[in-house]
């Protein structure tokens, strides 16, 4: 009898995974975006950390980070990989949050999900920051029965492509050790927007 129960459980577990795939990815995205904005516009001391922790629960962020690195992944020393993924995650989040920041909490309008294939979808959204509309498209992929973020396209500019181009250029003359150093500098230098490359 126990075996019969187990077999049913296994059956429904597997079935639920496949059923999950049929759920519109914009539902989760809507909830996540709303919660991210709530954290961003809260009086919290460490919003970035909180958002990373929250987003990491909702989505596997390693996927988008791995995609930004593309084939450069193979050029990164084994010992640096985890650290680089962590640092890029912070940097990408910084870019994403910077784009979402305004004087007042932005409004998000979700359009209908576009299914590119059975495992690929796009969720177009319009973000109203200080009444200015910004078009933001989430590219999602079905990974292990769950919709994961593969790319975020802000005003026709893909985060994955933009970062990958930079990593391609960076790795022509630099090592993964240099990348760790560069990323750490970028994330710690508060006056970076005023420093000059000259």
């Amino acid at each position, binding site marked *: 009898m126990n075996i019969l129960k187990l077999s049913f459980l296994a059956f429904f577990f597997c079935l639920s995974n496949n059923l999950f795939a049929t759920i519109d990815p914009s539902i989760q995205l809507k909830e996540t975006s709303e919660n991210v904005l709530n954290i961003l516009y809260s009086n919290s001391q460490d919003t970035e950390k909180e958002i990373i922790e929250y987003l990491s629960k909702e989505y596997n962020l390693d996927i988008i980070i791995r995609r930004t690195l593309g084939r450069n992944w193979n050029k990164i020393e084994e010992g640096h990989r985890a650290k680089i993924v962590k640092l890029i995650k912070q940097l990408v989040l910084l870019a994403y949050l910077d784009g979402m920041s305004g004087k007042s909490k932005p409004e998000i309008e979700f359009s209908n999900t576009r299914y590119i294939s059975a495992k690929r979808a796009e969720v177009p959204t319009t973000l109203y920051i200080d009444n200015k509309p910004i078009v933001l498209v989430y590219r999602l992929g079905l990974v292990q029965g769950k919709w994961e973020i593969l790319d975020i396209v802000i005003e*026709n500019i893909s985060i994955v492509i933009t970062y990958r181009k930079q990593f391609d250029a960076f790795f022509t003359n630099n090592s993964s050790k240099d990348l760790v150093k560069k990323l750490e500098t970028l994330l710690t230098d508060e006056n970076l927007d005023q420093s000059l490359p000259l």
Partner: protein
Amino acid sequence: MKTLINHSHYKKFILSTMLLFSSGIFADNFNLDYEFSEEENWSDDTAVNSDPLESINRLVYQFNDFFYIRIFDPITNVYVNHTPKSVRNSFKNFFVNLKYPIRFISNAFQAKIKESYYESLKFGINSTVGILGINTPSDKFSFLNGIPDEDLGQVFASWGIPEGPFIMVPILGPSTLRDLPARIIAREINFIDVNSDNWDTVESEWIALLNTAEILSMNEEILPRYKSVRKASIDPYTALRSAYLQQRSQEIAK
């Protein structure tokens, strides 16, 4: 019943069920270490953008960066902090309205008759009811909103002229061999273009003032974006080039 069904059948059933569904689950497994398949390259930039002038472009970028951060940014900050938002918006609307001729011509040259007509209608409403374009009453008409801003670079692209190499233009910023002449022509068509022969006249002083206001108005929009890209970039030059080329290719594709 119990006697009819053997336990080994249960085991087989469980195993086969697990196998059947696990194959479905792991078929879309995303292994971080594997080489990206064609489908995984979905949002990759497969186009190789030409940058034979990279070394010169990088030097120009450094000059521009100095100019934007050390000169434009402080001036723009003064403008933003000391000018009411309503006035800044009026300036912006006024200059956007003045660029109507280039939008009209660009639509017409691409045989976008409906868009040319809508642009003219928008210009007419905003220039009259909107008092020289400082207000945008055309916003109330949904069909006049969201008309893509066409330019001559898009016209050249529609004629099949190749993009050419990427060029970082002093002060003006990123461009391509195809977009640069388009921008120069657009400047000539602009209502408030500076005619260097008449610099000593009173009118030219007004024109210079308008040009300065236009630059400030543009910078209010562009500089925060530029600074944001710069702050979160490992290689700001490459980031800027990639962002510009991606945006242009999307604008042209529309």
